[in-house]
């Protein structure tokens, strides 16, 4: 202790001469740019996936319906409601948000005497901080899950351009689990899938490496997992929440992985179908395509005696006769069909209803009939020269090729069309050209520009890898014929395909012309149906068979499904086959 210790504290008085350090107007203090203040939500970007609700450790978030937000594909129609009595401002909801729509402003003052108002829907309930630019946003390069898809191994273009071996190699167990791990289980995909498959549930089963459970989930809504696991149009992936920040989940490949893992011999035990009790009612199915097979499967589970009539010599319908084997190997179709057959479903091949047996006969012999005969007729462009013998329909060529018939492949080919069928025939013919001539000279031309081409993007990429030349946005005008031989196709620039109301109404610039040399032209612009066997059935304005919610046609005992009602795609056919089976059950138990 010294005199200094007595005098030194008086130095504090020097602060009298200093300016005060306190903030004079604390209410006007601006928080830091990263401040975790009140929530904002971009209503347009938000898809209502509910991941914020899932991660909130205080259960402060509820997903609620909001006026003006409609439920649609890819949007649950719900929006997060935040309870500020529970929120701890940890911002995990912002970090996990699959669309980056949920953010935080740097505002932190909100005074109200009513405690209820502190439970609000950001973005919907207007607040003064809605347009605030500053505040916490998910940092760049900071992710709480992997946004990139586990890449799928496939055959190298040089290894596949002559052969029909399946291109996609499939996921390994490690890859599948890694990919399944990316799922946030929002379930947005379920609503969009025509069959409403339990996608998050089977992905969870993959994650847990429980293949039996996964298979059970698949068969609840889809009895053709090997087929769908390869060629499904995967609408689910187009709405996957993960696609907003990165790649959509490989839902289709995971489905294929599940089906590939389980040996068909175990199916009955796993799915509990070893003993099915049969009733005395009989149902006939017309067409062994996805719709017919689906209806047959679910009807047989319900105890019906099912018989399938198929015009061709093998089952699968368009999945066998319209899809090349490099996409869907035939033995995989057989695996799905054999299981359905093992449940007691009877198949009669080479029997075309309407020719070999008529519908009335089926009505006499069976209690109900389900018709899913598919779209097996090609559609012509009807341009000049399209009646030439070397101008083919894609669907005919694909069928002929599957049936082992010789295809008269020419050195230069033009394919007209921008859909998946056009890609299928182009890539099939490119392989045949390669086998025959050692090179590919094939041009695919479509009305649609590349960004709106209906074909899957991977089809476009893989076609190019296989040396198919793609010429998008050209309208076919005339197939040029010299000395009775096709020499090529005249096209004009297509400016737009649809009008403002979304109707098909292509506009052309006739001054911008092009000529694609060819010895052979293939048209792949769509398919038509042959429903002459259903004479008296009522049609819709769009010339599809009119059915009710149970897929019952205007003839009570006749149920109709598949591409002739909806689609065309396999998963819609499977879905309406399933619904029709339930409809038939209801009809027969009235």
């Amino acid at each position: 202790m010294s005199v200094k210790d007595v005098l030194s504290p008086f130095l504090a008085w020097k602060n009298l001469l200093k300016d005060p350090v306190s903030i004079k107007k604390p209410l006007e203090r601006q928080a830091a740019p990263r401040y975790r203040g009140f929530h904002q939500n971009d209503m347009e970007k938000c898809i209502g996936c509910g991941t914020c609700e899932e991660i909130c450790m205080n259960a402060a978030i509820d997903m609620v319906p909001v006026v003006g937000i409609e439920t649609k594909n890819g949007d649950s129609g719900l929006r997060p409601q935040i309870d500020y009595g529970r929120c701890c401002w940890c911002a995990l909801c912002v970090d996990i948000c699959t669309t980056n729509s949920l953010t935080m402003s740097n505002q932190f003052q909100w005074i109200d005497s009513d405690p209820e108002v502190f439970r609000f829907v950001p973005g919907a309930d207007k607040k003064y901080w809605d347009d605030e630019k500053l505040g916490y946003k998910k940092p760049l390069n900071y992710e709480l899950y992997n946004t990139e898809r586990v890449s799928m191994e496939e055959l190298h273009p040089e290894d596949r351009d002559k052969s029909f071996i399946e291109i996609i190699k499939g996921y390994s167990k490690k890859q599948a689990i890694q990919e399944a791990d990316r799922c946030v289980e929002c379930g947005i995909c379920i609503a969009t899938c025509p069959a409403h498959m339990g996608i998050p549930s089977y992905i969870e089963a993959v994650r847990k490496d429980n293949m039996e459970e996964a298979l059970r989930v698949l068969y609840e809504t889809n009895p053709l997992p090997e087929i769908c696991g390869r060629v499904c149009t995967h609408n689910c992936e187009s709405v996957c929440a993960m696609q907003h920040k990165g790649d959509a989940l490989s839902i289709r490949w995971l489905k294929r992985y599940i089906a590939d893992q389980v040996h068909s011999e175990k199916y009955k035990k796993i799915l509990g179908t070893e003993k099915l009790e049969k009733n005395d009612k009989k149902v006939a199915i017309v067409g062994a395509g996805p719709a017919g097979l689906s209806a047959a499967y679910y009807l047989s589970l319900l105890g019906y005696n099912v018989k399938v009539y198929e015009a061709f010599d093998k089952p699968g319908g368009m999945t066998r006769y319209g899809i090349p084997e490099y996409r869907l190997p035939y033995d995989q179709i057989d695996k799905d069909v054999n299981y359905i057959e093992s449940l007691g479903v009877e198949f009669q091949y080479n029997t075309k209803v309407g020719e070999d047996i008529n519908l009335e006969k089926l009505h006499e012999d069976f209690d109900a009939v389900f018709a899913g005969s598919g779209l097996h007729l090609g559609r012509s462009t009807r341009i000049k020269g399209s009646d030439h013998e070397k101008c083919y329909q894609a669907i005919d060529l694909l069928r002929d090729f599957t049936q082992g018939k010789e295809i008269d492949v020419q050195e230069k080919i033009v394919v007209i069309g921008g859909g998946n069928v056009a890609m299928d025939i182009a890539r099939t013919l490119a392989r045949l050209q390669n086998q025959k001539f050692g090179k590919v000279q094939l041009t695919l031309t479509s009305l649609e520009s590349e960004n709106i081409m209906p074909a899957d993007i991977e089809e476009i990429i893989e076609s190019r890898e296989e040396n198919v030349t793609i010429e998008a946005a050209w309208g076919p005008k005339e197939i040029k014929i010299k000395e009775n031989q096709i020499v090529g196709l005249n096209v004009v620039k297509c400016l737009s395909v649809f009008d403002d109301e979304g109707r098909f109404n292509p506009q052309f610039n006739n001054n911008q012309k092009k000529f694609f040399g060819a010895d052979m032209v293939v048209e792949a612009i769509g398919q038509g149906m042959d429903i002459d066997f259903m004479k008296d059935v009522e049609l819709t304005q769009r010339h599809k068979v009119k059915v009710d919610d149970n897929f019952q046609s205007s003839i009570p005992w006749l149920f109709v499904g598949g591409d002739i009602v909806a689609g065309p795609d396999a998963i819609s056919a499977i879905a309406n086959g399933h619904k029709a089976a339930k409809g038939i059950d209801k009809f027969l138990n009235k």
Partner: protein
Amino acid sequence: MPDVNKYRDKFPQKNPDGTNIIDLESHKFIKVWQGPNHPGITGNMSLELILQGDEVMSCKTHVGYLHRGFEKLMERRKFIQCFPICVRVAVPEPDFNEYCLSATFEELAGIQIPEAAEWMRTLLLEMARLGSFLMWIGGQAGTFGQGIIGQWTIYARDLVLDRFEEISGGRIYHMHMTPGGVRGLTPEGFKGRMEETLKTIEDIMKDIKSTMFNNAVFKKRSVGLGYIDPSWVDPYGITGPNARAAGIAKDVRKDYPYLKYNELDFDVIVGKNSDAFTRADLRRQEILLSIDLIRQIMAKMPKSGEYMAKMPNVLHWKIPKGETYIRSECTRGEYGYYTVTDGSGYPRRINVRGPSYTHAVALMEKLAIDCNIADTAGLMVSLHTYPPEIER
């Protein structure tokens, strides 16, 4: 006037082992509860004191007023959901919780965080130390009647919190260290503003040295108060400044270097006299050391780069079965998280080893005896305890 010394000679009488014989029925003693509202501004705990005159004859510590069950709560949360909870275990310096929790998860899950994240975490921990000590020093001065010091240091702490706000978006609960890394690096122009803050704090520390440490009142009351014998350090589990003031150079930063501490140049500060004054002065020096370390970190840390490891989907993140203990040196001593996982998506057990548990419960009961009632608050603060971490 009664002759006080007459009674003092008589009471308390001693047991053969030197402990006081206390008989409340004799009416020579009075029982006083200090707390839970004011046990010396360190939070909600209570001292059950038996006084003879104004001297403490016996002290019993009571906790349980602040139990919110954080450890148990975390067992019911996904791994990623734990970090917003753990920060509440030590409010004035939540970052040590964030670090220890994240580090245990990362070790058990086999995740290596990027280097920039390690530097960032080191910076945040030192900033937390600085901010926490500034709050403490105000408390220590306040318990000895010097309210002005607290006003200065809370201002200085607010400047540190401003810097935290810039980095993390939060002033109190920063939640910037998430399992896998950190939520971002320092913003544009941060270094300049940090340096300005450090200079301001250095100036304030000079003023504090002349007004608080060169102060007859403070010295009179703190010198000799709460003497901790070096031989008690191990039996009582004393760590941090309380041990270092007793001359024992224990510092996790040096003894078991973590993050980037082995790349920083510093010496462990030790004291001699092991009383409240020595501990206060040691913590004053620790503030200056923290300032120096922050400067070193700012000079060495990368300006850009990855700061988050590639994480599995945290919504169903499972950590393999295992157990680990991660420690760090917080302002009060060794701060550790013992985490057990069972391969599920939830931690099986998380145990927080907070130094306040040892310092505020057993040690306080020992040191309070024979201390003046007016000094118990100052004594408690000189042990630097935070009741939330006793109760977790």
